[in-house]
């Protein structure tokens, strides 16, 4: 080679280097594999004055060649000459329709195959052409690796962004379903999110009571339950609450290459969604319970206000007598009752009663006693007959553990004669000549037994200056913090020794005494008292 030829080669190589740089710049911007291949063919055509450039690609050794750019269909005859070997192969021909047949293995086990026709000017490929061609083929190799790296980077970005979406959606879904109070809506939302975040084709929720299916929901709506639940590609988890089992299934994880297995992240996500649903169900249950409690509370308040009307707000004015009463229930609805009623014959009915137990059931019995007593007492029945009737009514109206103790008195105001009957109630204090007489004659508590047990009434005559205290055991059994009761003795002593000019003051003071005794100890029983003294 002389100096001139040598300089020509140098110039040509310098030109080729520029072409390589421009070529790589073009190829590295390829948006797709086809785009990459087509651009490579354009570069070859421009650099070798060859129009017949055919490019093939195959994903692996076992797959068929796919054409990326096909100019000459005759090149299919040469496909067997494209050998899938571990290194690049170049075969140059001068006696065929094609001048170059080359194969380029890639790092991902795919192959490029190139079949190039003859030069436009029909000249043979020079040695420089052959070297340049091999360098361009190396350029394709580099560009393809760059293309793969870009794709990997895209996939990595996509995958990272998808993870962020999963985390975000998990948080958002938790917030959204916690605001929902309708089970069906929260189930639908959780199924939608669970399917979309794990790329599942279907998500199913089965609610079971034992082996019985209570409800089945599928996403997307109207999909085939059988297909979703019988798929071999599925994962399941369940939560249980209130005797029901909530079974979640994700079925058929999608990919661009078909259905694949669910991974560990999918299982974690499904379990997280199931826990969110469980929390929402528990919250909904508690919410409903709170509403029900509120409703019951309102009903009890209504019942309490009805019962309060049975307890007299004011007592009748009985000429020659001073009287006062009080009722302090320990719960909203008490089981104590007292009343003073003027009868048609000018006499007065005085009653105090205590239902065993407290609360709504006791309140109902108090109402029954009040209504029955008013019905009978105005008729011409004797007090013992009335007690007999009341016993039967209360017995029939109550459960076995419920009964009523009561003290009923009929006062003839002018004479001071009182007929009384004590039905199992604590003895009523009657102060006569500075002595206490305990009025305890009568019979068993009302409603205790259904036998026709005879009730017995007795008579006293209340003189001016004498007094009677009706009370319930809520006073005598009121306990202080040491568990000590106010006691019968204390009450007797108070009743006997304290002299008050008016009944109102007496009642007020006895309550103050009881409260002083109990201190901060909560009231455990109803407190009721009725005090009458003859002026």
């Amino acid at each position: 080679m002389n100096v001139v030829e040598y300089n020509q080669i140098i110039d040509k190589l310098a030109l080729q280097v520029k072409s390589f740089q421009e070529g790589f710049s073009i190829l590295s911007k390829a948006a797709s594999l086809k785009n990459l291949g087509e651009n490579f063919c354009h570069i070859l055509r421009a650099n070798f004055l060859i129009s017949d450039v055919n490019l093939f690609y195959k994903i692996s050794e076992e797959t068929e060649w796919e054409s990326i750019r096909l100019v000459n269909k005759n090149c299919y005859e040469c496909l067997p000459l494209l050998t899938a070997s571990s290194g690049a192969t170049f075969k140059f021909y001068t006696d065929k329709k094609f001048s170059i047949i080359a194969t380029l293995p890639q790092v991902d086990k795919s192959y490029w195959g190139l079949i190039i026709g003859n030069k436009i000017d029909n000249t043979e490929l020079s040695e420089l052409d052959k070297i340049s061609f091999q360098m361009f083929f190396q350029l394709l190799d580099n560009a393809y690796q760059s293309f793969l790296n870009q794709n990997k980077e895209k996939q990595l970005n996509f995958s990272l962004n998808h993870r962020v979406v999963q985390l975000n959606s998990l948080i958002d879904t938790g917030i959204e379903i916690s605001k929902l109070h309708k089970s069906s809506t929260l189930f639908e939302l959780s199924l939608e999110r669970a399917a979309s975040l794990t790329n599942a084709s279907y998500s199913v929720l089965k609610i079971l009571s034992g082996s019985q299916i209570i409800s089945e929901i599928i996403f997307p709506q109207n999909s085939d339950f059988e297909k979703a639940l019988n798929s071999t590609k599925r994962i399941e988890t369940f939560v249980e609450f209130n005797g029901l089992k909530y079974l979640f299934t994700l079925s058929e994880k999608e990919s661009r290459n078909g259905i694949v297995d669910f991974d560990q992240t999918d299982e974690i996500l499904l379990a997280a969604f199931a826990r969110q649903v469980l929390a929402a169900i528990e919250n909904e249950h508690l919410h409903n319970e709170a509403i029900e409690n509120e409703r019951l509370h309102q009903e009890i308040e209504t019942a309490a206000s009805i019962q309060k009307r049975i307890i007299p707000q004011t007592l009748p004015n009985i000429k020659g007598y001073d009287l006062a009463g009080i009722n302090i229930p320990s719960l909203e609805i008490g089981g104590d009752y007292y009343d003073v009623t003027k009868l048609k014959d000018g006499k007065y009915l005085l009653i105090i009663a205590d239902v065993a137990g407290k609360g709504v059931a006791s309140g109902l019995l108090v109402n029954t006693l009040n209504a029955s007593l008013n019905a009978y007492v105005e008729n011409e029945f004797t007090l013992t007959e009335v007690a007999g009737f009341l016993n039967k009514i209360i017995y029939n109206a109550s459960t076995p553990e419920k009964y009523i103790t009561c003290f009923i008195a009929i006062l003839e105001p002018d004479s001071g004669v009182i007929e009384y009957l004590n039905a199992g109630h604590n003895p009523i204090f009657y102060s006569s000549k500075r002595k206490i007489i305990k009025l305890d004659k009568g019979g068993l508590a009302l409603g205790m037994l259904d036998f026709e047990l005879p009730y017995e009434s007795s008579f006293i005559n209340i003189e001016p200056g004498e007094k009677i205290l009706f009370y319930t055991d809520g006073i005598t059994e009121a306990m202080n913090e040491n568990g000590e009761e106010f006691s019968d003795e204390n009450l007797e002593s108070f009743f006997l020794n304290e002299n008050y000019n008016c009944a109102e003051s007496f009642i007020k003071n006895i309550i103050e005494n009881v409260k002083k005794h109990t201190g901060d100890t909560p009231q455990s029983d109803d407190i009721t008292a009725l005090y009458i003294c003859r002026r």
Partner: protein
Amino acid sequence: MSVEFNLITETKENCVVINTTGYINNIGGQKIVDEFNNRFGNGINNVILNLAHSNVVNSIGISFLIEIIEKLNQTNGKLIFTNLDPSIDKTFTIMGLFQFAKKAENIDEALKLL
């Protein structure tokens, strides 16, 4: 809740409007791409994807949408999403779709962006 995937296509000016219903997953995404490929070219270089009746999308569905975006970018075409459910809007934002595609309240607003 999503029902079976379906789409209705209409052409407005130089733009194809694809209205979808249902879950945009492998099946839904493929149908959208097929519809896009059928309409792409022939003077149509812009796409409005109206997702008013699609409130659930998975990442496979998104990969199909990215495919459309990449193809349109090569020809300086535009893809505009409309009537996005807030959860899809957030997902597309995180996935970076709005770097290469736009969004509009509705189809009329989308047409103004073209």
